[in-house]
C-alpha cells in the first residue's frame, strides 16, 4: 500500500484524483492539502510515500512547495500533476526536484502508473516532457557548450534529427512546415559546423541529447 499525499487547491479535482488512486487498490491517499504550506504540514504529520502536487496553487506555489519538501524529505518522491502542458513548466518542476510530471487531463489513464513509477525511484515523464527536459538539461549542464548557441526549438529539431526522424515527422510533431524544419536543419548544421545527419547524430550523443 503506497501512502499518497495529494496537494491541489481544487477539492473537486482532489476528489476525482482520490477516487482514481484508491480504486487502484495498491495505494491510498493518507492526506490532502489545498496549498503548498498545508502540503508541507501534512507531509510532516503523515510521512507519505509519494507526494502528488499541483504547480499552481495559492499562498505557496507548487514549485516552492517542491523545493521545500525536497529540502525536508530528500527521499520523498514527488509527482507533479498540473493543468499546464508547456514544456517550460516541466523543466522548472524537474529542476525543483520533482520525479514525475503528468497533466491532469491524462490523470485517469496515467496517474496510478506514474505514482508507482516514482515510488519505485524512477522518473515518470510524458514524451513531450521527457524531450523538453533532455534538451534543457543538455543545454544547461555543460558550462560553455556549442549548444548554447541553439534556441530551444533548434535543440528540439536537432534531437529529433539525431533520433532519425524524417522532416515530415518532425514537422507534424511540432506543427510546423516541412520547409521550416529544413531551414532549422541547415541553421543547426551551420551553427555547429557539421556537414550531415550522421555527424549531427554523433554530436547529439556526445552532448547527451540522446542515448547511444
Amino acid at each position, binding site marked *: 500500500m503506497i501512502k499518497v499525499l495529494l496537494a491541489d487547491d*481544487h477539492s*473537486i*479535482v482532489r*476528489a*476525482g*484524483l482520490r*477516487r*482514481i488512486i484508491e*480504486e487502484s487498490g495498491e495505494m491510498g491517499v493518507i492526506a490532502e492539502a489545498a496549498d503548498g504550506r498545508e502540503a508541507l504540514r501534512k507531509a510532516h504529520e503523515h510521512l507519505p510515500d509519494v507526494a502528488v502536487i499541483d*504547480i*499552481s496553487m495559492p499562498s505557496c*506555489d507548487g*514549485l516552492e512547495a517542491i523545493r521545500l519538501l525536497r529540502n525536508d524529505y530528500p527521499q520523498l518522491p514527488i509527482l507533479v500533476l498540473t*493543468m*499546464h*502542458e*508547456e514544456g*517550460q*513548466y516541466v523543466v*522548472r518542476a524537474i529542476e525543483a526536484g520533482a520525479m514525475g510530471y503528468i497533466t*491532469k*487531463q491524462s*490523470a*485517469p*489513464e496515467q496517474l496510478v502508473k506514474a505514482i508507482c513509477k516514482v515510488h519505485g525511484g524512477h522518473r515518470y515523464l510524458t514524451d513531450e516532457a521527457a524531450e523538453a527536459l533532455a534538451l534543457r538539461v543538455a543545454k544547461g549542464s555543460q558550462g560553455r557548450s556549442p549548444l548554447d548557441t541553439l*534556441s*530551444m*526549438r*533548434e535543440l528540439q529539431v536537432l534531437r529529433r534529427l539525431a533520433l532519425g526522424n524524417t522532416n515530415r515527422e518532425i514537422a507534424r510533431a*511540432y*506543427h*510546423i*512546415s516541412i*520547409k*521550416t524544419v529544413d*531551414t*532549422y536543419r541547415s*541553421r543547426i548544421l551551420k551553427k555547429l559546423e557539421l556537414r550531415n545527419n550522421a555527424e549531427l547524430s554523433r554530436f547529439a550523443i556526445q552532448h547527451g541529447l540522446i542515448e547511444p
Partner: protein
Amino acid sequence: MKLRLILLVLSLVAVLSAATGGFLYYDALRTDAVEEAERQSLERVRTLKKSFSAFLSENIKPVRSLAGLEQLRHGLAEPDDAAALEGANRILDHFNRTLDTEVCYLMDRRGQTIASSNRMDDDSFVGENFAFRPYFQSAVQGRPATYLALGTTSGRRGAYYSHPVRADDRPEPIGVVVIKASIELIERELVSGQDEIVLVTDPHGVVFISNQTQWLYHSIQELSDDGRDQIARSLQFGEGPWNWIGIRMEGERHAVDLQGNGYLVQRAALDPYPGWNVIHLRSLAAIARTFSDPLIRIAGPSILALCILIGGSVFFLYRKASGDIFRRQAAEAALRESEERYRSLYHHTPAMLHSIDTNGRLVSVSDYWLENLGYTRDEVIGRKLTDFFTDSSRRYAEETVIPGFFQTGFCKDIPYRFVKKNGDIIDILLSAVSDRATAGRPVRSLAVSIDVTERKRAEEALQQAQQELQRHSQDLERQVRKRTEEVTSILKQLRRLSGSIMDSQEKERKAVARELHDELGQLLTALRMDSVWLRDRLKETDAKASERALTMCTLIDKTIDGVRSMAIRLRPGVLDTLGLVDALEWATSDFEKRTSITCFFNHGPAPIIKDTLATAAYRITQEALTNIARHAGANRVDVSLGVESGVLNLVVSDDGRGFDPQHLAESFGLGLAGMRERASLVGGSLEVQSGQRMGTQVRFRVAIDPEGSD
C-alpha cells in the same frame, strides 16, 4: 622767356664749375707729381751712391792679394833680372785679364814703373814715373789708397787702387803695385737715364763722371784762379780750363740753367772720397710732362664729350621747358572749363546742395535747394544756414553738429527740419564733407540734404503697425500657450488613462485567464475524471452508456483545449509564473505552429525585470508577431532579447515585404501606435525601421532597474 634765361645761366655756371674743378684737379696732380719726383730723385741718388761706392771699392781686395805675391817682390828685388821682371809682368797680366781692369802695374820705391800689363802697348807705362800721384805717395809710406783721376799717359779716366809691396824682412815697402779700373764702364752702366743728369764731382766741383759728356771736366760753379791753379798742379783732371757748366743752385733742392729751365737737385757724399759728391738733377719740365701727357690724352676727349653733353642737356631741357609751359597753359584752360562745368553741375543737380563757410553762412546753394524751400538765390546767400531751420534744429546744429563738423570734417544723416518760405516744415537728412584749404584748415562745407518727410511719415506708420502686430502676436502667443497647457494636461490625463486602461486590461485578462484556466479547466478535468470513471464502470454492464461516456470524455478534452488556448491568448500563465524568456520561447514556438513562418528566438541570460516591463515586452512582441502574420508575407522572423549595460533590448525583425512608414494600413498603424504607447508607458523607446522589400525591424529599448524588480 624767363625759364630760358635761367637755363642759360645755369649752363654757364655748370661750365665754370667744370673748368675750376679741372684746374684744381690739375694743380693737385702736379704737386703730387713733383713730390713723387723728389722722392724718386732721393731714391735714385742713394742707389747711385751705393753703386759708385761698390764700384770704387771693388779692387781693394785684389790689389792686396796682388801685393802679397812673391813674383812682384822678386821683380822689385832684382830689377835687372829679366826673368824676374817677366814673372812680375805675367802676374800683372793674369790679374788684369781676370779682373777685367784697364791696367795693372808695379812701381819701385822712386815711383818708376818697372812692370806693367800694358808694356806692349803704345802708351806703355814702363819707365814712366808716377811719384807725383797721391795714391803712390800714400802707398810708399805703407798705406793702401784709392784715387780717381784722368790718366796722364793714357788720357783715360780711371780709379786707381794702390798697395805697398814689402820684402819679407823689411817693414818699409820696396815698391807699389797699382790696379787701374776704367770709369767709362761704370759710367755707361749706372748713368743711363734720359730725364736725369748725374754728376760726380770732386771737392772743387769738377765733374769727373756724368751722363752729360759735354760737361766732363767742367765745374758746377765758377772757379777762382786759386782753385784753378790747385787743380792744374795736381794733374788730376788734365789741363783745364774747367769752365762752369752754367747751372746755378738756388737753395739745396733747386737749380736753374742759363735758359731758365728749372731742375730738381739731390746730392749725396761719396763716402770713400772725402769731398766728392754724387749730384742728381731732374728737369722740372720733364716731370711736368710725365703727368701732363697722359692727362691731356685722357682729359681731351672727356672735356669734348662733357661740352657736347652740356650742350645737349641745355637743348633738351629747353625743349622740355617749352612743352611744359604749353601744357600748363592748356591745363589752366581745362581747369577753368571744369570749374565752370562743376558750378553748372552743382546748381543743376536735382538734389538739395549747399555750402557754408566757417561762420555758418551760406556761400552757395543748388537750384533744387532753392526750389524746395521756395527762396531765390539772393535771399539766401550770405545768410546763416540755421536761419532756415526750426528752433530745435537750430539749437542742435549750433551747439552740437557744426562745431563737431569743422573738427572731424564730415557728418552723415543728421536729421534736421527746414522751414520753407511759406512756413511749411520738411524733414531732411543732412550729410556733409568739409572742403579744406591747402593748409588743411576747413574753409567751407559741401552738404547734401535729402527730403525724408514722406519717408518719415511712412516709418511712423510702419512702426505703429508693427507695435499693433506685436501686441496681437503676444495675445496669440498667450492663447496658444494656454491651449497648449490645456492640451498637454489632457494628454497627460489621457496617457494616465491609457496606462490605467492597459493596466486594468492586463489585470482583467490575467484574472479571466486564471479563472478560465484554473477554475474552469480544473472543473473540466474533474469532470473528465468522472466521465472516464463512468466509462470504465459501465464498460462491463452497459456498453452503450460506456461509449456515451467516452464521447463525453472526448468532448471534455476538446473543451479543455479550447479553454486553455483561450486563457493563454488572454495572458499566458508562463509570463507570470516563469518569466519573460519562457513566455517568449512559448510565444515564438506557438507563432511558428500557428503560422508556419519560421521563428527564431535568441536570448542572453534571463534578465530580472519588473512585471510591467515584462508585460510590455511580451505584448510588443505579440503585436509585432501579429503584424508580421497579417501583413509582412515573411518567411522568417527573428526575435532576440538581450540586456546590455542595464538596457533591455528586444528586437523583432522579419524578411517580409516591409512597408513605407508614410502609408500604413489602419490596423497596422493602430498596432504600431499601441506598441509605442506600451513602450512609452514603461519609459522605453520603440523604433520601427522598414522599407519596401527590406523587411521590418521593431526595436524596443528600455532601461531596467534591477533593484525595483517585482
